[in-house]
């Protein structure tokens, strides 16, 4: 299984994401934002957390229009897997690969703490290692994680079982406590919490590692 992790100026979770993929058994290529093509044979693209381009204009907006993001879109359009975490989720909404947008936290503060998340669906390569309804503890660290979408979009996400994770206690004003969502083909996941930061014993628990091992396991058996 071959994963690519995109690196933008201002990415700061790219190496953590690489380690999490590697610990799950994937081979990882780091891909610079000015590159225009993915390495051959990439199965999944990781869009990491951080502050790409200083969060100028809107979080993720400049990154979403960088050369490499054309390849990310092309990969997703072909049915490829894309995982966006934190700033990566913001980038994926700005590219249009996921619906909605991440607004400034309703409390206006940057929130950095471990939180309980409810796994809403086990029906995806990312969440197949969890039981739906399970609560896991994963950290968040963001200023703009307040998920917003219009009512029709929210209804569609719920009807199609595309909400992957919800906050048990809403930290940022997200509509319907949404912490992570899937694309309509269930192969693109965007989430604000950081599973790569809860993936080794030294982190406190390994509940985040399950996401990476589920994904790598699903793709290797595919």
């Amino acid at each position, binding site marked *: 299984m071959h994963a690519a992790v995109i690196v933008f100026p201002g990415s700061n979770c790219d190496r953590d994401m690489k380690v999490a993929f590697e610990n799950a058994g994937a081979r990882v290529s780091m891909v610079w934002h000015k590159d225009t093509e993915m390495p051959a044979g990439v199965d999944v693209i990781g869009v990491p957390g951080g502050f790409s381009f200083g969060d100028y*204009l809107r979080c993720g907006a400049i990154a979403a229009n960088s050369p490499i993001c054309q390849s990310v879109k092309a990969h997703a359009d072909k049915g490829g897997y894309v995982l966006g975490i934190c700033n990566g989720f913001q980038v994926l*909404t700005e590219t249009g690969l996921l*619906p909605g*947008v991440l*607004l*400034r936290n309703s409390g206006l503060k940057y929130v950095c703490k471990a939180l309980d998340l409810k796994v809403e669906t086990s029906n995806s390569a990312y969440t197949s290692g969890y039981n739906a309804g399970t609560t896991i503890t994963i950290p968040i660290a963001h200023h703009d994680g*307040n998920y*917003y979408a*219009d009512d029709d979009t929210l209804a569609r996400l719920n009807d199609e079982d595309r909400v992957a994770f919800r906050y048990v206690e809403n930290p940022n004003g997200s509509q319907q406590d949404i912490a992570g969502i899937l694309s309509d083909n269930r192969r693109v996941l965007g989430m604000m919490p950081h599973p790569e930061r809860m993936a080794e014993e030294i982190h406190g628990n390994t509940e985040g590692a399950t996401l990476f091992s589920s994904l790598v396991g699903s793709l290797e058996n595919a």
Partner: protein
Amino acid sequence: MKARVHVMLKNGVLDPQGEAVRHALGSLGFDGVEGVRQGKIIELDLTETDPGKAKETVTAMCEKLLANTVIESYSVEIA
């Protein structure tokens, strides 16, 4: 030719920054402020000399990058 783009959150989209400004105005003793909405102004210097074409180009820029039309509306002034 100069263009000026106004970007505002659409009605109905919560504006936490505008709300914070409203609260701060209240605590400074400015009564009677029922709502505050905060937006952006983006000024562009263009080489284009035809106002119609400039407006068309800047509108395309808004759709592609300057505004996120899921939550924001925009208007373009050419001067």
